[in-house]
């Protein structure tokens, strides 16, 4: 018995409906990127994570950050917990590393804006 999973591809706005079976055969894709996504979504789904960290600054209370690569979907809340522990001081440069190699995943959490003071 070969069970198929139905998913919506999120790579582009078309949102093709994919079917992926146990052997990771993908059908329903509108382009090759859908095949890659379909397989990855079943094997090792990943997401980008964005959030904010506390910052000591004259004009801003929060510094927006993002992971510089997609992280495994199942570890999102752990990464959030790590982000919530951090407090930084201005000045912060755009893309400055806020957490290096978060949870040993080889992924950094970086600032998405400059805060000069």
């Amino acid at each position: 018995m070969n069970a198929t999973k139905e998913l919506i591809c999120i790579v582009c706005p078309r949102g093709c409906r994919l079917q992926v079976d146990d052997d990771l055969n993908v059908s329903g894709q509108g382009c090759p990127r859908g095949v890659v996504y379909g397989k990855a979504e079943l094997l090792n789904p990943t997401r980008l994570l964005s959030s904010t960290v506390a910052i000591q600054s004259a004009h801003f209370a929060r510094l927006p950050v993002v992971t510089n690569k997609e992280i495994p979907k199942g570890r999102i809340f752990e990464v959030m917990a790590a982000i919530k522990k951090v407090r930084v001081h201005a000045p912060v440069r755009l893309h400055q590393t806020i957490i290096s190699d978060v949870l040993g995943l080889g992924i950094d959490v970086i600032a998405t804006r400059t805060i000069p003071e």
Partner: protein
Amino acid sequence: MHDVIILGAGVTGAFIARSLARFRLDVIVIDQENDVGNFTSMANSALIHSGYDPKPGSLKARLNVRGNAMYDQVCEELDVIFRRIGSLTVTTREEDLPVLKELQERGVRNGVSTSILNQEEIRMMEPELSLDVKYALYAPSAGIIDPFELVVHAMENAIDNGVKLCLNEKITGIEKTAEGYCVITSKGCHEGRLIVNATGVNTDIVAEMVAHNDFSINPRKGSYFVFDHFDNNFLKHIVFPVPDERGKGIVVTSSYSYNYLVGPNSNYTDDRDDLATDREAMEYIKQHALKLVPRMPFDKVIRTFSGLRATSSTGDFIIEPVADHPYFINVAGIESPGLAAAPAIAEYVVDTLIKEKLLLIPTGKFNPRIRPLYRFNRMSQAEINALIKVKPEFGHLICRCEMVSEGHIHDALSRSCPPHSIKGVKKRTRAGFGRCQGGFCQPLVLKILSNHYHVAPNQILYDAESTFVLKDALDKDGHDENR
């Protein structure tokens, strides 16, 4: 021991407090809400009726007409926006002409002059009225007012002249003592020689704490639509339908701020906390409004709300002491025309009911005026710039829809009846009343309140105690980690 304890800081209590502030008396006002004028007084049609409508000889009739006449001076002293635009009571039916004539006759007996207009005259005055409208009763002395400012400024004036205000105190019991009464509230006990019960929809319940009373309050809910500003001249008068046994009916009117207001309907309710709006009621109100003003733009509605009328079982105001309790005065059943009558009710209570019981010695330093507001729309550019030079906060506009500055909010906070919540700021400055309903200004208002009261932003209230706008702060448990 206070001389007078006024229960209720709505429009009635506020005006009575102000009237008593003229005299050398220790007066306090107690209210269960987090602000003055926070129940019926802030959820009504905001109309100062001319007074042809109430039954001749009734207290409603006498005090409506007397109150209406006092409003020019009251609003001048208290800096309240009031526009005496006149009202049209209209009908589409030929058979209602005698009804209008009867209302006119009633008006004569009450001392109110009105005229009956024909179709052509109506069309010239209000082109937006339905072409089916045949006759109208025109009452030029009717007006529209800012009901929020009215109560706040009356209370501010009372406080400036020595009255004390206690908010967030719910009355749980009243005991007769040797010298007067002890009013027991959720926060403690207040002793006073004379009590004025102006507790709106709860006056019967409060009166029962003292003795059995012959009246009851049957709350009647009414809902409204509030429209955005779209055309200051769309309607220039208050438009009423012909009244029926339920009341004055669904009004369509410009408001003091050139918004438009449509409502209220009328539904008795047992629940004295029931301020919900419902789909059917709003649809009913809309259909009735469109019959009179077919082009009323319901796509421009920015808010709906409900209020409860304190309708008494007698049908009239009940302004008299409780039987066998000459120092406990009920001021009950204050529904329409309560707003119009308020200054006259206060005059009556003080000059007729209290005068014979307490020694009323003028303080000699009563000032009936509050410090005027800074209203940009009555200041020249030079005046505004002079103000901004001295108080730069007036140059920082924080409410885009209603053009309210940080300075206006600081000014409200500096007065003796200041706001304690986002809602309180809204009522006093109009920040948040506009089409975006606080979407832009609320965080800025919140920050100002947080700084002024020296509390964390998540301690700021939306309205009543414990209605915190913000809950958890995100950085509850951060530690330094600057990489």
